[in-house]
């Protein structure tokens, strides 16, 4: 039962079915819709757990849909990187739980079943994105998650939200098209759509220019999805204006799919073995470094707490991309684990901020002064998140910073180690403002002292996540050692 291979398809099919049935089940009954989607996600989590147990025991495995042999059918492939389904399921569950109260207050009732449906579809898209082994299938799932993402940004019905969603949609759609174009190019030169097969056949391609163009196209498009610095302009508005649980999902997971796409592109090209990726690596490292600094720089000027968090996502994506671009063992490990850890941390922060906004109705740092006294647990969780995202030990953010910095030195590019560590200080500047305003400053609105703690359905996810931020800092070696074989396999070096 545990090693049943069908869990791999179940992990996509369960949330998919749940999502399309949410409007049926939940019509005019928002509570039922909420419970239904929670149940769906719980089942999905079971499947995800089984998959991770299996990959830990046996290593990567495949599932051939329709029983067609490798290049002819669609292959689902579960490797160590795909273990991201764990964090997708976890954040999904917690965001859905958080939504129970939050959405009732901020979204029109008739839209609520569709809200849950879209959220489930978004999660389905991400799960499919990380487990598929087929390039075109990857595109299809990317579209599911992008489309639902655009709609979720706009779902609150505010004017600014709709404009942010439109901006997001245009940039997202263009980048999706570029991905499709690159898939077409790769298909033209290899005749295959299966990633492993493409990787094998790429080694024998003689005319390199289309292949390099495909690589550049994919890199560019995924950078847009990942909101790397000059291509980030869609992110702050979209993430800040979306409902908070959605922000948590978007910031914690959806932007990571861009990084994940880069990772898959790397897998294809490293697998081919005879492609020189130095140019791309250099570009990624520099863009990563610039993102770290620019994200932090813009965040300093933000008054709106969610806007600040949104810019900090850009910085953190910078970490991850820099780690990938360093192309050294430690850098790569740090980057992949930071995908996971940053999701935890950012979800803590966004959900915590959501709880504050829900209870107080304020969203700027000035207005929120003194809230630490009335909502101590939420603010404690937010502070843990802040410490963690800056990378103060022993929280989850630290190990990744340590690994990526180590990777920079390992790759012989110490400059980026410095950039990373000092960039993190820059980030601290604005998080300390947040902590100051919660705890140490006199309230601007005295009535803020009398609001109570957030309801349990909001508090519980926030606290669970904050605890995980700490636990993952202390037990950080577990994901690290879990991902290590995959990275080594990808880089093709052992012990180097």
């Amino acid at each position, binding site marked *: 039962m545990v090693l049943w291979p069908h869990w791999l*398809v179940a992990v996509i*099919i369960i949330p998919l*079915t749940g999502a*399309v049935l949410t409007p049926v089940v939940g019509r005019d009954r928002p509570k039922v819709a909420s419970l239904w989607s929670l149940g769906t996600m719980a089942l999905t989590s079971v499947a995800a757990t089984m998959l991770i147990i299996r990959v830990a025991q046996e290593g990567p495995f495949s599932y051939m849909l329709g029983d067609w042999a490798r290049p002819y059918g669609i292959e689902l492939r579960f490797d160590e990187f795909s273990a991201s389904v764990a964090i997708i399921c976890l954040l999904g569950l917690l965001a859905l739980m958080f939504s129970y109260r939050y959405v009732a207050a901020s979204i*029109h009732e008739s839209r609520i079943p569709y809200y849950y449906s879209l959220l489930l579809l978004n999660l389905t898209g991400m799960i499919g994105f990380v487990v598929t082994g087929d390039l075109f299938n990857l595109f299809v799932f990317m579209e599911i998650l992008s489309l639902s993402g655009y709609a979720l940004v706009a779902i609150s*019905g505010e004017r600014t939200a709709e404009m942010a969603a439109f901006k997001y949609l245009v940039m997202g759609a263009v980048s999706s098209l570029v991905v499709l174009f690159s898939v077409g190019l790769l298909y033209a030169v290899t005749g295959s759509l299966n990633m492993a097969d493409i990787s094998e*056949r790429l080694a024998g391609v003689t005319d390199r220019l289309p292949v390099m*163009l495909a690589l550049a196209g994919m890199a560019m498009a995924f950078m847009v999805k990942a909101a790397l610095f000059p291509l980030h302009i869609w992110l702050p508005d979209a993430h800040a204006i979306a409902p908070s649980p959605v922000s948590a999902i978007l910031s914690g997971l959806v932007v990571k799919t861009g990084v994940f796409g880069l990772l898959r592109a790397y897998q294809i090209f490293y697998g081919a073995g005879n492609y020189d990726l130095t140019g791309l690596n250099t570009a990624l490292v520099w863009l990563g470094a610039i993102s770290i600094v620019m994200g932090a720089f813009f965040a300093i000027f933000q008054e709106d707490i969610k806007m600040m968090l949104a810019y900090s996502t850009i910085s953190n994506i910078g970490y991850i991309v820099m780690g990938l671009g360093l192309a050294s063992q430690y850098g790569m490990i740090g980057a992949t684990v930071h995908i996971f850890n940053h999701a935890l941390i950012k979800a803590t922060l966004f959900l915590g901020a959501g709880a504050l906004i829900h209870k107080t109705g304020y969203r700027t740092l000035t207005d929120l002064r003194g809230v630490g006294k009335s909502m101590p647990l939420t603010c404690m969780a937010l502070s843990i998140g802040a410490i963690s995202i800056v990378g103060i030990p022993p929280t989850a953010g630290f190990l990744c910073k340590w690994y990526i910095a180590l990777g920079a030195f390992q790759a012989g590019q110490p400059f980026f180690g410095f950039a990373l560590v000092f960039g993190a200080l820059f980030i601290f500047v604005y998080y300390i403002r947040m902590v100051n305003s919660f705890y140490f400053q006199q309230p601007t609105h005295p009535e803020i002292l009398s609001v109570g703690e957030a309801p349990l359905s909001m508090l519980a996810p926030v606290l669970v996540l904050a605890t995980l931020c700490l636990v993952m800092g202390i037990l950080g070696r577990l994901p690290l050692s879990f991902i290590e074989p995959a990275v080594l396999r990808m880089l093709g070096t052992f012990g180097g």
Partner: protein
Amino acid sequence: MKKALVSALLILTAIPLLLAVGQLPPHGSAKSPAYEHVSAYYLEYGAEEAGAENIVTDVILNYRGFDTNGEVTVIFTALAAVMGVLLLGRESRHPVEQPTYPPSIVVRFIVRLLAPFIAMFAIYVILNGHVSPGGGFQGGTILGALAIALTLVLGENEARRLIPEGARPWLQAAAPLTFVGIGLAGLTDVGVYLGFPTVETLTWVRTMWLLMLEIGIGLGGAVIISSIFWTMEGER
């Protein structure tokens, strides 16, 4: 100024792109890797193995059936997205009783006259997708267009009655649900999700499943297209 800058930038971008496509295998060549690898296999064995004479249908529903499973989910996502963005709750909706400018009698007459034929054609396209050009998507679009045309001449309330209110959410989810159903049938019967029986004696099962998929896609597509149209019109 901005326009000139953008143009210049795009022309610069064009150069590497054109260089790259120039290096692609020559257009129309039967010796290209794209033609010789996977598709050669499909063309050779597809008709017997996958169950439909139309190889494109084989690819869509059988070899790459999971893509289509995702694809129908994309359509459903579009529906949910439009609903999520546009719905404002029943009380604030004012369904349009009559079009603001009722179409002329000629239009009304012709639409009413053609409606059964259009529907017939749509069903034909859906059911013959596996042996001729066409299939669920194409037929579903025709059906959806029919629903839109009828809305224009009958008014929304009248047209909505074509699809009963209670069944509508089920029908909207029809395509993904059919896929999941067939997929699970394949799981129990063949042992793999979306597996189709390949045994000689069970070819009729295979054909039936393909047809069910086509019908599911067609029905779901049509309902979703008309639902999106109605939602948008309600917002006009």
